[in-house]
């Protein structure tokens, strides 16, 4: 309990500091630290799957993305106003009071909830055997609520479409990386194979223990990010249709499976005897696409295609 209270206070303190400190770089570092602390909280709350996702996506890749974006902001930009200095001091005060009221109301609503509520844990346990996997979180993500997951990986692809469309309208060329040095080169040679190995492990482990396509995909993306930071770029021959195929492989596998299940008249109903195999197949495609998409999101610019048109 003491541990929890301390952790909770630290979280609140970090949130306040990262949102109120004047230096944006400091805010980003604090945000990454905040994500790491969240991961410890997830572990405390018996949610190791979420902890994995938080470390890989919530803190790791988001942190890298934030730093990359901060570096792209105009250099002559005067340091951002800390808060809207045109506004009177009364506005923040009123806002704070209003939010305090809302938060108290919400707190009261949560407080009034029954102390014991099983949620859907009973249903999950009862149907776990038919799901094809023994990690309940994977069962929910890929089978019980697989339709959500289908839409979710489409959201990820949509984000990339949006980012690419934004950058394709921008005339300025992509920023070239500085040449890699020996330290980075060695680190990359060590880390990239390790990351790929860990991704494969997480994917495989996801069926029975914490892990799964999203965490594995994020680790794969981390390997991609390292490569990109070291100055590696996708060969122009692969940057057109092959890259697009890699990006849509996960969604397309999902959509195809959904269409096939329609022949049996029920959307996304996996036959019990093949469910485990189908889920692993689906997750493999998904991991691959998620990895490529996340790395592409980090790069931002659409890679140069053969034939010149960016």
């Amino acid at each position: 309990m003491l541990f929890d209270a301390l952790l909770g206070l630290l979280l609140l303190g970090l949130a306040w500091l990262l949102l109120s400190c004047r230096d944006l770089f400091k805010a980003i570092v604090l945000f990454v630290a905040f994500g790491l602390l969240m991961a410890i909280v997830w572990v405390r709350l018996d949610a190791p799957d979420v902890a994995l996702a938080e470390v890989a996506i919530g803190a790791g890749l988001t942190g890298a993305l934030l730093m990359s974006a901060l570096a792209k902001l105009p250099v002559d930009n005067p340091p951002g106003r800390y808060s809207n200095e045109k506004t009177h001091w009364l506005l923040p005060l009123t806002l704070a009071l209003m939010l305090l009221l809302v938060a108290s109301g919400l707190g009261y609503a949560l407080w009034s909830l029954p102390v014991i509520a099983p949620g859907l844990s009973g249903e999950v346990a009862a149907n776990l055997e038919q799901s094809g996997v023994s990690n309940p979180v994977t069962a929910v993500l890929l089978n019980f609520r697989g339709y959500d997951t289908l839409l979710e990986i489409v959201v990820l692809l949509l984000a990339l479409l949006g980012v690419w469309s934004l950058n394709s309208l921008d005339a300025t060329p992509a920023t070239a990386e500085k040449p890699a040095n020996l330290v980075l080169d060695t680190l990359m040679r060590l880390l990239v194979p390790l990351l790929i190995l860990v991704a494969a492990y997480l994917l495989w482990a996801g069926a029975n223990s914490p892990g799964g396509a999203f965490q594995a995909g994020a680790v794969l993306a981390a390997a991609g990010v390292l490569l990109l930071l070291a100055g590696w770029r996708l060969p122009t021959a692969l940057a057109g249709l092959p890259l697009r195929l890699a990006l849509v492989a996960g969604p397309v596998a999902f959509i195809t499976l959904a269409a096939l299940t329609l022949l049996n008249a029920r959307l996304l109903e996996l036959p019990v005897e093949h469910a485990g195999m189908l889920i692993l197949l689906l997750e493999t495609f998904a991991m691959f696409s998620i990895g490529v998409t996340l790395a592409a999101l980090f790069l931002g610019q659409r890679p140069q295609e053969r034939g010149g048109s960016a």
Partner: protein
Amino acid sequence: MNSAILYALVGVGIFSLGLYALILHPHLLRKILAINVMGSGLFLVLIALAKRTGEPLPDLVPQAMVITGIVVAFSATALALALMVRVAKENHRAELSDDESQQP
């Protein structure tokens, strides 16, 4: 007060802090950070309250929802950051220009 409700209340607090910053700070990067912080607070409420099963194992459906939520939040952040960089180039500062809007 058990740890489930404790963390849930912390989640509400984090959400509110994020909302305060989102409304008050004009810099777009800070607004994006604020939205992410709000999301984390929300996820904390979702998972903390799932501990109330009365058994050692928590309700796992919220955990799957939060993994979905983390991926969606990341997607939104990536899009928002790309948009921010473009807006900052147009406005010469990473804030929304307020000259074209006639309303308060």
